């Protein structure tokens, strides 16, 4: 028996901010399913004290949260074991991006959801577009906020359905002011920070475009399968770079903090172009053991980050970083090299001697993308 043949389906209700109605719409669907006779439970649900939402949950079976003690306080987390024992057809899990309290079985709620899917349970869940890992830098630019709770893009790609839950920003702000979303105190704070109208409009556009992209990749796969004739009609966007593409992207990982943004950007472009994605780190001795601890930790962190985004990094040995990188690219049929743009003060005085400039000169037969550091750039005139 292969696990995937019994795998549950995943449906994500995607929004752009708290209060747009994701949970409400998810519960509405849950309720309809229950009326149709589907065996459905609430595995985790965050009412945030919202009246309409709480009313929607009435009549649905709730699996009580597992209480976990952490630093003297009790926290309720999804009780994955209990849900697996109960084994419903469908389970509702709110807030997909949530980070579990230490002491939980998994660090992330999306990992809990993987367990349920593997056990053949269908899952309905909610998330905001800003929780998507590859959009982290862009969202920071819009909002000035580094979103910490992120979901790797491949996890979202696995979803069978992504549905956009939309609400015009002005209507969301009205809700906020009426105290539907937060307490008045918190609402005031929110409107000064995250809930500025221009920010909301930009996030909303991002969410709509992301949904369009999710629809696009799913029907592109479907089109190919229809063209191939009858057979297993189930969507297979699950693994790998998608339909074969001759493009291959190579990311240069270093100890510099810009590596994280570079990895996200490379991953995102690779996904959009349906390209393969590789990463390398070039070290003089070809061994992480030979470099100072602080540098090693930074490189290892970036390599782990790449793995989380399903990019397998390699460590290469080479005196000359540019030459080693380009040689690897050529031997692996890479079509595009991604390198970070150094900070202004790190450019050498003489042209052509910096790493970027050397890579560009050496890789005269390969495309090179110099990824700029995204900075906050909004200013009031």
């Amino acid at each position, binding site marked *: 028996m292969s696990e995937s043949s019994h795998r549950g389906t995943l449906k994500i209700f995607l929004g752009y901010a708290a209060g747009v109605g994701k949970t409400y719409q998810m519960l509405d669907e849950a309720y309809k399913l229950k009326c149709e006779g589907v065996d459905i439970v609430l595995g985790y649900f965050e009412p945030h004290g919202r009246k309409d939402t709480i009313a929607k949950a009435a009549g649905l079976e709730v699996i009580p949260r597992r209480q976990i003690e952490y630093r003297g306080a009790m926290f309720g987390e999804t009780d994955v074991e209990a849900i697996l024992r109960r084994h419903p057809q469908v389970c509702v899990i709110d807030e997909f991006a949530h980070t579990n309290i230490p002491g939980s079985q998994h660090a992330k709620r999306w990992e809990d959801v993987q367990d349920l899917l593997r056990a053949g349970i269908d899952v309905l869940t909610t998330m905001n577009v800003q929780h998507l890992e590859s959009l982290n830098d862009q969202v920071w630019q819009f909002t000035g906020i580094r979103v910490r709770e992120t979901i790797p893009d491949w996890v979202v790609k696995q979803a069978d359905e992504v*549905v956009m839950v939309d609400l015009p920003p002005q209507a969301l702000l009205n809700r906020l002011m009426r105290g539907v979303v937060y307490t008045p105190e918190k609402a005031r704070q929110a409107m000064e920070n995250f809930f500025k109208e*221009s920010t909301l409009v930009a996030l909303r556009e991002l969410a*709509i475009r992301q949904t369009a992209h999710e629809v*696009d990749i799913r029907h592109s796969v479907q089109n190919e399968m229809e063209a191939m004739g009858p057979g297993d009609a189930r969507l297979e966007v699950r693994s790998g770079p998608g339909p074969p593409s001759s493009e291959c992207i190579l990311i240069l990982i270093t100890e510099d903090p810009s590596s994280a943004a570079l990895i996200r950007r490379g991953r995102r472009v690779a996904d959009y172009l349906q390209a393969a994605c590789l990463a390398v780190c070039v070290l003089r001795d070809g061994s992480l053991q030979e470099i100072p601890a602080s540098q090693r930790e930074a490189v290892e962190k970036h390599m782990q980050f790449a793995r989380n985004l399903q990019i397998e990094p390699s460590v290469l040995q080479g005196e000359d970083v540019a030459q080693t990188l380009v040689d690897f690219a050529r031997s692996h049929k890479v079509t595009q090299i991604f390198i970070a*743009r150094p900070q*202004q003060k790190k450019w050498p005085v003489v042209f052509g001697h910096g790493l970027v400039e050397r890579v560009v000169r050496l890789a005269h037969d390969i495309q090179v993308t110099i990824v*700029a550091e995204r900075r906050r750039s*909004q200013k*009031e005139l």
Partner: protein
Amino acid sequence: MSTNRRPDPEQLLRQLQAEEQFYRRGRLKIFLGYAGGVGKSFRMLDEARRRRERGEDVVVGAIQPKVSQEVEALLQRMTVIPQRHIDGVPTMDVEAILRRHPQVCVVDGLAYDNPPGSAHPKRWQDVEHLMASGISVIATVNLQHIEERRAQVERITGKQVTETVPESFLRNADEIEIVDAPPDFCLQRTSAGLQTNGSGSGRSLPQQLSELREIALLLAADVVDYQLEAYLVRHGIEQLWGAHERILVCLTPYADAAKVIASGRRNADRFHGELFVAYLNRPDLTPEEKILLERNLAEAREANARIQALDGEDPARTIMSFARAHGITQIFVINRMHNHWWDRIYGRPLDHLIRAADNIDVRVFPA
């Protein structure tokens, strides 16, 4: 007789404000869906219900002849202005709504053609009339009825649509809300099947719906982008970033740019972004360079790029200022390898561009 009573200024002011309020233009909210059965009418009426519960005076001006049970249940609780009939054809009774003058009027199916003899040939024109009289409108429209998207939709569905609403009507709405659901959801509710006739692209019905869904989402994103720009202009905010990709291909008269332009087009399409092509005006081109530049420009026009000639002494600086002004997120340039003494000392224009392009990605293509 109270002839000596002077009018109370407070009262006059209140009256004036009330009048102003009364005659002020109404607001328009449009629910956009990609197919029938996606749940637009329900969402619209649900909003009408909530507004009524908050104390707004809401009436239903027009509703589709066939509605689902859920919609029917919501309608039961609303005030409906009966449609009037012209030669047996039902149409929204604009006069009756104006007489009743509610705060909010619900109008289902914006694209409806009124029967001959009506005040306006199109229902969306009726809506403009209501708004001009200070009545706010919440309405629905289907993607297939947006004039500018009609041909694209027809290629997918194989079905001709005659009733349309201009896209500008959507753009100028105060709010639009996308009503999204998976194709299966529409199919379960059957009416979606009526909108395609199985020919068209020759693909299965769920596939056709999925394609329509993507177009509707992108249309909504464009409208939102347009509104974001309008908002930023209105509030005097300068923002370098955008929520969507804008690719700028830099042309030179020295290298064949066909591949780069093609890649730019493909990337712009993949990201559902925009493609720009720019080049520097140079007075001193040789005949060969002129021919090459012309050929590159022909490619750019073919690729449907927005083309701009730039004037400036310093290439890198000129390109960067254009890129910043247009919210460019990626610059594509060709790496022309040559070994001029000047370049070795002062750097190539490409080196200058890479160094100058903070906040914008630069993609260097082999020549």
